[in-house]
């Protein structure tokens, strides 16, 4: 059913090797090699259009790479086999950029979606789990009957986060979680990512542009440029690496954000 890789080690949650992806004449990924360590918060950063979100979609199995492999806890991702994907995705949770809440369902039904679909829980057990999940993201049960359209941007992301962690994934991924949010909500969502990661002992991957919050939350940074990983390592290491592109992105972005403040 699943193929173990010979180079897999227990401290690697996701291993990406030689990933290439093109859309027509646009070569987005030109051979990405990346290891995501277990139990750490890894930020994947880079300029617009460098393929950060695409990498996340390939890890989730929504899009197949042209060339290359992705192993999750030693199991080979195969986007063409839904049953195998389903098996591997039990490890994965994802928070989409806009939450991607199901419009036709209430907040309760969104959070309870995978509990109802995949577990055989009673109504009272489901109620208790939903209440606990909403509480863990700072929302009260009073919101449970609301439709997603009645929530603010921050509340939608919190509900989506509660839904994503409902099945207790080992790896949680965030696709630009703070894009379009005000500074206060950005801080709240960032703290939530850190708290959820610590509370559930998750391997966390965050796709972000935001160099301001990265140094307070990230334990590991991967920087993408021209379809390749140009830097992987601890956040402070970006200032020591001799790469003009890395320096330009982090130094200029940080300076620009501080000037803006």
């Amino acid at each position: 059913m699943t193929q173990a890789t010979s180079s897999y080690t227990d401290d690697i949650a996701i291993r990406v090797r030689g990933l290439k992806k093109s859309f027509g004449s646009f070569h987005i990924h030109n051979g990405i090699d990346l290891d995501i360590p277990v139990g750490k918060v890894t930020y994947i950063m880079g300029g617009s259009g460098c393929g950060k979100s695409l990498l996340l979609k390939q890890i989730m199995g929504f899009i197949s790479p042209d060339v290359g492999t992705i192993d999750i806890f030693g199991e080979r991702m195969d986007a063409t086999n839904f049953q195998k994907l389903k098996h591997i995705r039990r490890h994965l949770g994802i928070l989409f950029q806009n939450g991607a809440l199901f419009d036709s369902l209430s907040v309760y039904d969104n959070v309870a979606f995978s509990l109802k679909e995949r577990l055989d829980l009673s109504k009272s057990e489901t109620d208790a789990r939903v209440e606990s999940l909403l509480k863990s993201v700072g929302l009260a049960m009073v919101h449970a009957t609301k439709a997603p359209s009645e929530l603010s941007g921050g509340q939608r992301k919190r509900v989506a986060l509660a839904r994503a962690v409902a099945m207790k994934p080992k790896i949680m991924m965030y696709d630009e979680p703070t894009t379009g949010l005000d500074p206060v909500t950005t801080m709240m969502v960032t703290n939530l990512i850190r708290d959820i990661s610590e509370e559930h002992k998750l391997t966390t991957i965050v796709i972000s542009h935001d160099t301001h919050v990265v140094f307070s939350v990230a334990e590991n940074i991967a920087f993408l440029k021209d379809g390749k990983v140009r830097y992987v390592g601890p956040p402070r290491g970006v200032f020591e690496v001799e790469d003009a592109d890395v320096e330009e992105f982090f130094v200029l972005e940080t300076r620009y954000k501080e000037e803006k403040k």
Partner: protein
Amino acid sequence: MAGMKQIHRRGHIFLQQFDFIGVQSLTVITFSAIFIGAVMAFQTYIPLHQFGMESFLGPSVGIALTRELAPVFCGIMVAGRAGAAIAAEIATMRVTEQIDAMEALGTDPHDYIMAPRILAGTLVLPLLCIYFILIGCFAGWAIGTLVLECDGAVYWQQLGWAVDFTDVWQGLAKAVIFGFFVSSLGCFYGYNAGNSAESVGVATNKAVVATILLILFSDYILTAYLPYDPSNLILH
């Protein structure tokens, strides 16, 4: 037990879609049937009157509605109303990453989103078709007796004599197939929509145009090749 719960959940979505595609189409189907039945009565009365065969008004209206007009118009009307809505809803789910989110949560969108809609569309269209035939025949009778001064009793007597099981079977068989086309093409174009807001409109447009063309094309094929007697399907 978990399987029963899942059937119950899918059953709930099926009933929602049955209501949306079927019950909520009743208004548009009622008006379509009234006007089609009335026009049929007017149009067929003129040549029938020329030959002194006004008593064949009921059979003309009844057979035309049962074999042809009811299934085709039901298909087209439901494609415009429900097929378009299905395509737009699923395309919006695609654009807003709700389908990706569903897959990420371990649920197959084909099973959760599409199967209940396709099943509901396939089963509800024959029922709408029967309703269309009844309303259309009453509209033809109303025009025949109130405007064209035909004998109402003769209208029903001749209609009952002329329209038999084979006409009903052909009409309902077409309706089942058209219902499948309406719902499955709505799902197909919605599911395969692109990732932009524009793609919602494109998917909706494609779903409606493709469904109507496929209904008209398959209507010709079914009319030409569907056996007059359903038992021939088994014999062949």
